[in-house]
């Protein structure tokens, strides 16, 4: 590269004058204009809702049956279906104290798993394995919750730490494989998800976990002392897990932007080659960051096994959190605070989605579709720009991965 012209043009950044104090903000990645941070996600959400409405309409079987005879009435039914679905979604998310409790309760594991994916992104790794790590972490916590007899003040921390170790091992395994053999983490983490799911299915049928007399993969109820205490009494499911999640947000912020290892994570994420030349042990970093990522997912697993009434665990306790986490990490631009807000948003969508499913017959799968769309719009800001004819120029496309290169 000799001439300016052959270099890739530097990414477009507004050349606004920042004082020297701006150094800290830049390095820390905060202090971006609020508008820039919010505009794109808001537009993405709006677009996703619009497309979602369209999907609700075209999948309305009853309305289609009327279409031949009374097309206008059928169309009205369709629009009504959208209205009911979105109304219930909103009410289910924000409409009552119970709804708010459900939103926060649902957000808890999402925030934790979202942090897990975000940490991976920052180090250039795409951890699709939150699901498997939730399983393994959750099982570790479950074992402690069932078989270790401790006072609550110790029992909960021990179970939570066990979950972090379990999830960390499962994530770290993928990191180790990448570091030692170059096996791409996208493939290994997906495969480890399947392995963990089958393992969970099996282990919940063994005498170690299974409820006596049960024939299905379902654990016995965990000991009282290991249950995450609810905050507003047992009629609301929200528990201290949300505080764990918020603490994790600040912890991850500190790790990423204020610690030496976070500096290494980010350097390796942007340029593994330059990190190697700077003397960083990139192989170790891959393992470490995947351990950290797995540990955060493991925490999400713990909130699922220790905090979900009736405190018996079935084989699908990881739900769809693993995917939600990817979407919300992208939505939150892999920044811990961004993840916090996106986690709350997705928590609201899903909590509301459950009510919508019950009341309007639109399954929660719609939320998956909307999340996918949000990710597309976030990852392709130009698309949003083209649709809304606005200048969302500040948003650069996200490039987090590069080929299969070892």
């Amino acid at each position, binding site marked *: 590269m000799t001439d300016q*012209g052959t270099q*890739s*043009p530097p990414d477009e950044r507004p050349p606004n004058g920042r004082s020297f104090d701006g150094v800290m903000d830049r390095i820390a990645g905060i202090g971006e204009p609020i508008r820039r941070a919010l505009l794109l996600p808001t537009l993405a959400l709006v677009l996703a809702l619009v497309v979602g409405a369209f*999907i609700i309409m075209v*999948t*309305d*079987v009853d309305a289609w049956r009327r279409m031949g005879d009374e097309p206008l009435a059928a169309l009205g039914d369709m629009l009504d279906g959208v209205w009911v679905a979105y109304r219930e979604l909103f009410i289910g998310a924000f409409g009552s104290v119970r709804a708010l409790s459900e939103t926060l309760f649902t957000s808890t594991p999402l925030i934790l798993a979202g942090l897990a994916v975000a940490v991976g992104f920052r180090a250039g790794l*795409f951890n*699709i394995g939150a699901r498997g790590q939730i399983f393994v972490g959750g099982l570790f916590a479950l074992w402690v919750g069932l078989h270790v007899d401790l006072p609550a003040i110790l029992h909960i921390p021990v179970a939570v730490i066990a979950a972090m170790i379990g999830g960390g091992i499962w994530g770290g395994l993928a990191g180790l*494989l990448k570091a*030692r*053999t*170059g*096996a*791409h983490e*996208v*493939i*290994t983490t*997906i*495969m*480890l998800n*399947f*392995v963990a799911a*089958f*393992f969970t*299915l*099996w282990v919940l049928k063994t005498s170690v976990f299974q409820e006596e007399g049960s024939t299905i993969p379902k654990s016995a109820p965990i000991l009282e002392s290991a249950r995450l205490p609810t905050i507003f009494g047992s009629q609301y499911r929200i528990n201290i897990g949300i505080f764990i999640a918020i603490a994790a947000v600040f912890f991850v912020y500190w790790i990423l932007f204020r610690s030496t290892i976070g500096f290494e994570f980010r350097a390796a994420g942007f340029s593994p080659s330059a990190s190697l030349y700077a003397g960083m042990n990139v192989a170790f970093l891959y393992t470490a960051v995947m351990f950290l990522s797995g540990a955060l997912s493991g925490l999400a697993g713990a909130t699922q096994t220790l905090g979900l009434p009736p405190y018996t665990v079935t084989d699908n306790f990881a739900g769809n959190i693993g*995917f939600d986490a*990817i*979407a919300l990490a*992208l939505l939150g631009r892999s920044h811990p605070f961004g993840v916090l807000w996106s986690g709350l948003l997705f928590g609201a969508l899903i909590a509301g989605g459950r009510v919508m499913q019950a009341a309007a*017959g*639109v*399954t929660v*799968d*719609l*939320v*998956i*579709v909307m*999340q*996918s*769309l949000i*990710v*597309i719009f976030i*990852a*392709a800001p*130009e*698309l949003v720009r083209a649709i809304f004819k606005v200048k969302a120029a500040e948003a650069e*496309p*996200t*490039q*987090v*991965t*590069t*080929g*299969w*290169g070892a």
Partner: protein
Amino acid sequence: MTATAELFETEARVRATPEERRSTIVGIVLIALGVYVFWAFGLGSGAGLDARFNLSLQTDRFQDLSWVVDARTLSILVAVIIVGLGIWRVTRSALSWTNISLAIGFGLFSLAFLAWAAAGGQFSLVGMLRSTVLLSVVVVLGALTGLMCERVGIINIGIEGQLLASAFAAVVLSSAFGTIAGLVGALLTGGVLGLLLAWLTIRFHVDQIIAGVVINFLALGLTSLMTARILTDVQTLNAPERISAIRIPFLADIPVLGPMLFDHSFFVYGMFILLVGLHFGLFYTRWGLRSRSVGEHPKAADTAGINVYWVRYRNVVLGGMIAGFGGAFLGLSQVARFEENMTGGIGFIGLAAMIFGRWLPFGALGAGLVFGFSRAVQQKVSILGIGIPSEFLLMLPYIVVIVVVAGVVGKTRPPAADGQPYIKQ
């Protein structure tokens, strides 16, 4: 004089090359495997228990072919051969044989395992081989999809979603309008999702892996939603006509090979034709040369007057259509109905098969057969009921993928521009 002294000193600190080290590791693995075979299958099989491997199906022209073997003797023999191969590897001679030794070792291991499992009973070997082919079809087609895309530099993680969505389209359209409509619909669905991948990654520079993951979940979400809202309500849309097998005259009567290869639906024959076509197309035609140049060095292709974007769009869409073909096979050929998330990760296994097969069509076939075999073993062995929990057998193909991508195959060389966006000024 000094030269010899220096040379001597040089040799005093010679470290192994990566290939030599791999040979040693493979050797140690093989020795351990051999010892395990001896202990578990050799000593583990009761003395004098015969395993009967059936070599014909009830529908075959030639009936009652079988191979009877003493499980213990066979296992011990296999153990000795595997240990021998392992020792040979540890000596680091003939390095090009490392992978072949490994393949032979695992093949023999499987044989001993089956003999042990079937000891004192019988086991349909030909049935298992037939299943191997059937179970590898989607894996191979998935791998070919990935190969089509990656040969032009675009990583396709969305194969899973392309398979799932096109299976759904095949089932619904076939139920409503007949088989042809189902097939066409599946091809189009796969192609459209390929187009979406190409559009997002080329036009909007979306990270290729993110785009692929999104396609997977979009397909999962949409098909699940439509299954719940439409198919449960209108069951007739989930009842396509099952596509039956076409027996090829004479060839289908060959013992073992006949039922294995020549008594299938046209999907299987289609896969083989596609495979051969892709092999020659990629390496002997203008289309292949241009495609590969775009995947290796897009700028060089551009300066040679080749439209990089067009080539990428075209191949990714064609790749999606291959996945569409695979999805139609999933939906119409075996169970002939759509179930939520019925792909169960097979698209990802296809992706791994592509890597294992080193981005070569016949490599994809070989890798696909390995995965098909591991699934076939899992299915047949769970019928035998040998005390291994079914969950562990179900894990097997996924573990095989991890082992494979973690470098059983040694150093692979993907297309040089794989995964990199090509951005013109």
